[in-house]
């Protein structure tokens, strides 16, 4: 446990080295909320209160982007062969992998916290059990995202390939989810023959994460335990993938 805590601390310290990147990310998130969402609210009058709808999506968006940053660092470590040093530390490969995974997840939670608090200020407070469920779902989501990111990062030594893969994952998860628009509107894509995208959007953990927050803060859609289950399954699958990939693939490089 102590070794894992050291690794988490290492990743936390590294997180603050990217302060410029974080400031850029915060600026983009705030601009999304206070400019784009405000304008779209005017355009979606009578259909949805877009500002209130988008605010929970933004918290999930921030969580995704910040939890994904661990992959960028791990890919850099692989390219610069810093992973040799990490592998030489007095801890098991599994402890190292779990520490990195949790570090990525906690960093996502840390970045997301102000955005979630903004939600509470704008949309109202949840009850204590609801708050605990929201935090649990978001933590599981952060671990899953960190897992996806680590799995991609250790699979390639090329930064360009990592960036491209990250782009594909980002845009697929972002735009094919209910982060930006309600599920009912995404379902209209079925009429255009885009059924696979609609199915993906339904099981997308970003959809379930943001809808879970909405269910407690906005009352719509109604809460379903399947939302939490979806996020948990995603988290377990990618946490296992990342642990396996980090311990096995890293030693092969």
């Amino acid at each position, binding site marked *: 446990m102590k070794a894992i805590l050291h690794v988490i601390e290492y990743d936390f310290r590294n997180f603050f080295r990217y302060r410029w*990147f974080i*400031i850029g990310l915060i600026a983009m998130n705030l601009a999304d909320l206070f*400019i784009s969402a405000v304008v779209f*609210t*005017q*355009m979606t009058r009578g259909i949805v209160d877009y500002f209130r709808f988008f605010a929970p999506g933004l918290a999930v968006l921030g969580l995704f982007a910040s939890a994904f940053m661990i992959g960028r660092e791990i890919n850099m470590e692989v390219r610069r062969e810093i992973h040799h040093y990490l592998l030489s530390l007095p801890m098991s490969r599994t402890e190292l992998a779990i520490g990195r995974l949790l570090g990525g997840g906690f960093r996502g939670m840390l970045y997301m916290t102000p955005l979630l608090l903004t939600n509470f200020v704008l949309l109202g407070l949840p009850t204590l059990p609801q708050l605990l469920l929201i935090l649990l779902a978001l933590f599981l989501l952060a671990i899953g995202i960190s897992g996806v990111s680590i799995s991609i990062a250790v699979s390639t030594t090329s930064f360009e390939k990592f*960036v491209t893969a990250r782009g*594909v994952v980002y845009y697929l998860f972002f735009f094919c989810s209910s982060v930006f*628009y309600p599920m009912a509107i995404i379902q209209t894509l079925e009429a255009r023959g885009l059924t696979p995208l609609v199915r993906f959007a339904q099981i997308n953990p970003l959809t379930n994460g943001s809808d879970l927050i909405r269910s407690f803060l906005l009352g719509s859609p109604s809460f379903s335990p399947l939302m939490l289950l979806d996020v948990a399954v995603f988290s377990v699958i990618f946490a296992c993938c990342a642990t396996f990939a980090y311990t096995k693939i890293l030693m092969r490089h």
Partner: protein
Amino acid sequence: MGLRKIRFVVERDLRMFVQYKFMLIMRGIWFVSQVALFGLVVGKMVEAAAKAAGINYFQYYVAGVTIITLYSTSMFIGYDIFEEAEHGVFEYLLTLPVSRRELVLGRSIGGGLRSFVYLGPLLIVVLSLLGVSNPLHLLIALAGLFLFAFGVSGMSITIAVAMKSGDKYDILIGVLDALIVRLSTTMYPTVYLQQAVPSYATISQFNPLTYASDLFRWGTGIEGTFEVSPIVGVLALFIFFFSFTFIGVVFYEKRLEGGSWQ
């Protein structure tokens, strides 16, 4: 000023662009996902409002995304400058028998031209989606977009040389990107900006992205998008191009020497 020397600088920047192949692929993926997912779904969501404003939102958005892509690829030149400073190529460039003025002018044109080369295939897709109602209007719009692309490259060079720090440049570009795109008519018509927060609409009137996207929409014949005369649009883009190329030349000349790149 030697045109031949400027051509060499432009050619070099065009060749350099190929090294960003993965970045370019990523921009391509972003473009496709914006059009095929975001554009389609948001188009449905704002259908009623778009009808009231007399526009087809999907077409409106596709044209806007094209301009955002042109803007972001034109900004790449700044990253080239930092790459060169980091690897000591900058000093090599200064030893070449090319004046500072020729160098910055060539870079500004090269930066704009290469983004057009990149945009070419995407533009064909976009035009096939939007159609062209008046080829003359389209040519005028494309000429305006050339000025816009050169101006953005000049702006990117100006910021890069003024900052001389990769970190600061990165953050400023990130913040600028977040604001300049959202406070323009690339994603939504002025009327909704005005309804949301009137000051947003006022700021958007000074935003080159507003003029570029509205001019492009006018060029492709998208209804109800240009609120001012297209001549004013071209003029605004010319002023933008001229200002940043001029400022870029002055800054480049003044701040090139002495290193201090971070």
